[in-house]
C-alpha cells in the first residue's frame, strides 16, 4: 500500500488524471482545449478564462469496456462549474444513458475536484447542476455511476450533492467532502462555529477517512494510481445497486457544539 513516488493521482492535472484512469493508450478528448470554449462571463468580470473551461471529457476504454472519464480541473478556479463545464458533464451523462438504452453501454467515471458552482456564473451553474443530478439518477438505473474524489480541492456545494447520488464513491485520505466549505460556514456562522484555519479539524469533519467510516464513500484507497484504477475497476465489476440515502444516526444536535462533536467521535 506504500504509494510509489511519482504515481500520485492528486499531483496530476485533470487531463492526466483522465488519461491515467483510462486503459493505457486509450485517450481521446472530446471538446478539448482546441475547441476554444471559453467562458465569456469570466472575461466580463476580469477573471482569466481557460480554453477547456476546466472540464475534461475523455473517451477510451476502462478494463476493455467503452468508457468516458469526466475530470474537473481543481487548479482552475477551484474546479467550480460554470455554463460550459456544466454542459459537458450533463451531456456526457446523457449520452452514456443513450448508449445504455441502445445496448452499447459506456462506463462513466466522474473524477471530481470542485468547489461547486462557479460564483461568476452562478445561475447558469445552478441550472447545470440540476441537469447533472437528473442525469446521474437516470444513468444509475442502467449502470453504476462512479465518482473518484482524490484531488486537492475535494467536492463541495452542488458537486458534493452530485457525488452523493453516485453508486460508488472512491476517496483518498486527502479528499474532502462537504456541502459548505469551512470558509463559507465561517463567513455565515462565525469562526466559533467552524474555524476554517483549523486544518486538522477540517479533515476530521470532512476528510476521506471520516466519510468512508460514515459510509459516504464505498472505497478508501491510497493516493496511488494503480490502487485508484483497481478500485474503479472493482466498482464496475461489483455492479452494485444504488443504496437509497437514509437519515443516519447522529448525536443529539441540541448538544453544545463541542459536546456534539465529541459524541460524534470528533476531537475539536
Amino acid at each position, binding site marked *: 500500500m506504500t504509494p510509489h513516488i511519482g504515481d500520485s493521482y492528486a499531483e496530476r492535472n485533470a487531463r492526466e488524471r483522465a488519461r491515467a484512469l483510462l486503459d493505457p493508450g486509450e485517450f481521446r478528448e*472530446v*471538446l478539448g482545449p482546441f*475547441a476554444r*470554449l471559453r467562458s465569456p*462571463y469570466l472575461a*466580463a*468580470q476580469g477573471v482569466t478564462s481557460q480554453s477547456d473551461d476546466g472540464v475534461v471529457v475523455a*473517451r477510451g476504454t476502462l478494463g476493455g469496456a467503452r468508457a468516458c472519464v469526466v475530470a474537473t480541473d481543481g487548479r482552475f478556479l477551484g474546479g467550480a462549474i460554470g*455554463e*460550459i463545464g456544466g*454542459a*459537458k458533464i*450533463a*451531456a456526457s451523462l446523457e449520452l452514456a444513458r443513450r448508449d445504455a438504452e441502445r445496448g452499447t453501454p459506456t462506463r462513466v467515471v466522474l473524477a471530481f475536484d470542485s468547489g461547486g*458552482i462557479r*460564483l*461568476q*456564473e*452562478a*445561475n*447558469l*451553474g*445552478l*441550472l447545470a*447542476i*440540476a*441537469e447533472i*443530478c*437528473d*442525469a446521474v*439518477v*437516470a444513468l444509475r438505473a442502467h449502470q453504476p455511476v462512479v465518482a473518484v474524489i482524490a484531488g486537492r480541492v475535494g467536492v463541495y*456545494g*452542488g458537486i458534493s*450533492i452530485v457525488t*452523493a*447520488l453516485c453508486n460508488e464513491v472512491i476517496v483518498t485520505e486527502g479528499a474532502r*467532502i*462537504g*456541502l*459548505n466549505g469551512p*470558509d*463559507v*460556514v465561517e*463567513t*455565515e*456562522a462565525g469562526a466559533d*462555529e*467552524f474555524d476554517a484555519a483549523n486544518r486538522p479539524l477540517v479533515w476530521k*469533519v*470532512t476528510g476521506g477517512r471520516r466519510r468512508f467510516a460514515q459510509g*459516504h464513500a464505498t472505497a478508501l484507497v491510497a493516493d496511488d494510481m494503480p490502487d485508484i484504477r483497481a478500485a474503479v475497476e472493482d466498482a464496475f465489476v461489483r455492479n452494485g445497486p444504488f443504496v437509497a*440515502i437514509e*437519515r*443516519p444516526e*447522529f448525536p443529539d444536535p441540541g448538544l453544545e*457544539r463541542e459536546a456534539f*462533536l465529541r459524541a*460524534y467521535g*470528533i476531537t475539536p
Partner: protein
Amino acid sequence: MSEEVSRGRAWFERFAAGGARADGFPASVLVADAPLDGLPVRWVAVVPAPQARFPRARSGEMGIDEAFGVAAAVRGVPPNSAIVALVDAPGQAFGIREEAIGLQRALAASVDAYVQARRSGHPVAALIVGKAISGAFLAHGMQAGWIGALDDPGVDVHVMSEPAVARVTRMQRSDLARIASEVPATARDIASFARFGAIDALFEVADPQAPTDEEYASVARALGAALRDGSGLRLPGERLNRPAAIQTRALARRVRGELATGWDG
C-alpha cells in the same frame, strides 16, 4: 404587510385548506394532500421552526431534518398524486453539525426523491414564493418540470450570500453589485433568472404573504394546468429548449451539440 407568518406557510395553508395534513414530519416541513381542481396533489413546504433541534436550521433553512423530511414526503407521495414544492428557503443550513453529519447527503436524498417521483410519472411543479437559494433550491424546487414564481422583489434566487461570495472570490461587495447589474448570470432577482428560460410563469401579487382571492386563483389555475398537461414531467435539460434559453444559454446548447457529435469520434 405582516411578517409573522412565513410566505411558505401562508401559501401552504392556502393550498392545503380542505386537505389532509400528513404527520410524522419535523415542525419545519409542512406536508398535505389536498386536491387542486379535482387533481390529487401533495403539497410540500419548508418553514421556519424556532423549536427545531438543529440550532443553525431554525429560520427556514434546509438542514438535515428538513432535507430528509422533504425526501420522505416525496417518497411517500400517494399513487396518482402530483407534487408541488412551495419554495421559500433562505438557503441551506450553515453549521458544523450539518457538515459533520453530511448535509450534502440529506440534500441528495431530497433531489433523488424528486427525480425518481418525476421520472416515475408524478408531475412535479414548484412555486417560488420567497427565497430560493442554492442548495435549498436544488433540493426542493429545481427538479420540478414546471417552475412558477411570484414577480416580487422578495423573491430571490442565488447561490451564495454576498459576504460569502466576496470572501470566496476575494472581491469587494460594491464590485459584486456592479457586476450583477451587468452579468445576469450573477444577478439575484427573479427576472434575471427567468431570462435563462428556467421560470415558466411569473405572477404579480400585491402582498406575497396574503394574496387576494383573484391572485390566488390565477396561480392555482396555472399550477393545475401545468400538472395536467405534462409540463410537470419535463426533464431539467428540456429548459435549454425554452424560447428564452435559445440565446441566453446558447453556449450550453452548443456544447451539448458538439459533444454529441464528437462522442463516438
